[in-house]
């Protein structure tokens, strides 16, 4: 069926079966490759995007449920050519090894900091409950999120 999606502020018409996970529509129809497949069961967070500001695992989120809602992906968080403070902080802290988990983690962190700009260390860790990192970059990632939070609160 034809579905209209609002992605990173722009409307896109796509054709897909209603139960198709949003992830495949983003990656294959709209060529937004920054959202990644990790498990297909909402367990690892590599596919995290924002739907109406809330972090959602797009691998088990049907595209029909996203119709008409505002979807934000990693490609849509820089503004006017300026990287988002989270992206800047991840670069500044060199907070990646393989980086496969990173876009999902940035999106989960953005959902948290947008709702709670002064989130505590505990809250940051809890907000990343649904995100896995296999390289062991946790410590740098947490440092980058704290740095971004400080920057955003300035």
């Amino acid at each position, binding site marked *: 069926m034809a579905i209209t999606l609002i992605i990173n502020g722009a409307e896109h018409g796509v054709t*897909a*079966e209603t139960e*198709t*996970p949003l992830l*495949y529509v983003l*990656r*294959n129809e709209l*060529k*937004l*490759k*920054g*959202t*990644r*497949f*990790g*498990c*297909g*069961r909402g*367990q*690892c967070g*590599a596919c995290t995007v924002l739907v109406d500001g809330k972090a959602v695992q797009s691998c088990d989120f049907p595209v029909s449920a996203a119709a008409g809602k505002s979807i934000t*992906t*990693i*490609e849509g968080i*820089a503004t006017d050519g300026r*990287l988002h403070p*989270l*992206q800047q902080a*991840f*670069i500044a802290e*060199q907070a*990646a*090894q*393989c*980086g*496969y*988990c*990173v*876009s999902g983690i*940035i999106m989960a962190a953005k959902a948290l900091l947008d709702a709670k700009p002064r989130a505590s260390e505990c809250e*940051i*860790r*809890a907000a*990343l*409950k649904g*995100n*896995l*990192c*296999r*390289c*062991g*970059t*946790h*410590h*740098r*990632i*947490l440092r980058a999120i704290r740095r971004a939070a400080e920057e955003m609160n300035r």
Partner: protein
Amino acid sequence: MSQRSDSAQPRQLPGSLNTNRRLDRWLKIDRDGTVTVFPGKVEIGQGILTALAQIAAEELDVALERIRLAPAATSYSPDEGVTSGSRSIQEGGMALRQAAAEARDLLLQRAAARLDVSLEQLTVADGQVTARSGGSVTYWELTSDDLLARDATGDVAPKPLAQHAVIGTSVPRRDIPAKVTGAPSYVHDLDLPDMLHGRIVRPPSPGAQLTALDEAQVREIPGVVAVVRDGSFLGVIAEREEQAIRALNRCQRIAQWRETAALPEPDPRYLLRADANSEVISEKSGDAERATTTLEAEYARPFVAHASLGPSCAVARFSDGRYTVWTHSQSIYPLRHDMSKVLGVAQEHIVITHVEGAGCYGHNGADDVALDAALLARGVPGRPVRVQWMREDEFGWEPFGSAMVVRMSAQLDGEGRIANWTHDLWSHGHSTRPAGKDGVNLLGAWYLERPVAAATPGNPALPAGGSHRNAIPLYDFPNQRITNHLVLKAPLRTSALRSLGGHVNVFAIESFMDELAATARADPVEFRLRHLKDARARAVIEAVAAKAGWRRGEKGDGARGRGIGFARYKNLGCYVAVIADVEMGREIAVRRAWAAVDAGLAINPDGVINQIEGGMIQSVSWTLKERVQYDRERVVSRNWEDYPILTFEEAPEVEVVLINRPDQPPLGTGEGAQGPTAAAVANAIYNAMGVRLRDMPFTRDRVLAALA
């Protein structure tokens, strides 16, 4: 007849340059003001490409921004075997350093001729060669297509240490900006015109045979282009990815299999009863004081998964009898070797290009999925097919890090020194990468109508070793005997997992050192130093003790405690000592960990630190939580719920002290933290609660059982 030895034996050149001697295999000076480097080693998230760019920029005296890195490909890259074993700097980096130094020398010779001055008159800054008398010319003007069309000589010395300006600095990683902005970065993100999507229908258990499948029920699914069946190898191809997954799911529901697997009990001690090739790998007898106390202990680890976050993926195209493959394999040439045997085409008719994947931590499904994609592509000539394993495939079919058992025995003399030391280890082989000595090490090949058998499993040879990696202690014991019991027949597929046997051997040695220290009523740090002459080894132990504020003889409080572990990776790589602080709550938590590392010359200090930090956290995960679960037939760990790993809520704070030794050769770093961290955690638990855990993972149940 006498032989002229001088010309018969070509001169030994640094690293992989020795086997890839042409300079233009390594780099090219371009007229547009850039330098293209052709590494044979590949990026696996360890930051190697940034370090290689630094080496090239340094030796050539050009700005880092001028260095471009060509993806590794069998059509032009030097054959550097496998990107593994923490050898990329030592092999690829040192080769590139020499090649770049020789390229610079050739450019300077041309400049001297052009400017009509002697070499000594010349200086270089960012590719601009200037004569003291005033004239100048750039590399980009001096270069020509044949400049590097020659073998390296080994006659040019790389830059002296004192002149290093780029090597030794923490240059930011080149790949991170793309990764944090969501730009296509992985083979998973390749999107070629007319590309189809494939999925493989794996059997329910190892060795199972496909007995029946009603293909019509699969073909009727909208979008399905082909069902590829060859013996018990089964795959589906569809226009859209979700359609391929739907076809996969239907196949899984309707396909019938005959299962034959007979998996062992979950306890790794089944290894002790299996047929093994036993070999004494180190034996030493010397004078010792009369031993007064004997101690014995047994340590074990179950099968552990690489568990890449991104399931293995490849894209392949078959046309005009030739295959083009994009892969995140760590070994493009060995992969091509094995693929050519299975596909029945000459190696020259397969072009394999590396594209980065998710971190692999050793030999995972990367090579297998490349063959899978080629086998599917053969069914739809002309159209590229992208195959990604599902999460369940990755857990079910990747080669695991082998289960292992280690038995230790030692005697202390009256002075509290170790007089005798024996170490017996049981394990399956730790290397079943492609291009084994026989057979084919690609999963799909074993299930074809005319199957190609797997290669005989084995181990990398000592001194690096496989299951016996790090089994020979670095400590100075007057008497020792180390025996490797290699169990060749493995019930589950095993291969290289970061540090191979080093994780378990170091865990056992360093746990046992702690047990002996306790028996000798000695402080664990002091006890280690008592047995250690190597000055660099002592230095990392002392540095981490200072950093963590280690207090001699300090006891834990019943819930919290700290422990130390040490090793020199492979006994020839980096030196790492780790201290961990643990706390027992509902589960054991590692709150903080410190490491000191000496990797010789650090090309990129932050890169070394990042690898050690990541290694520590990953090792904490393996050690506290990880165990591949299986029943008598099937692997039952199939997703992250069945195979939990360390979460953000559980991750420790980590801190690394880097002892940089620019005057010493660089030493491999990527795997150095795995063993020492495991031991530090075990020793911290003992320090905290007085219980000794010898079986990984250290779950709550095991702690409670030990306390009971």
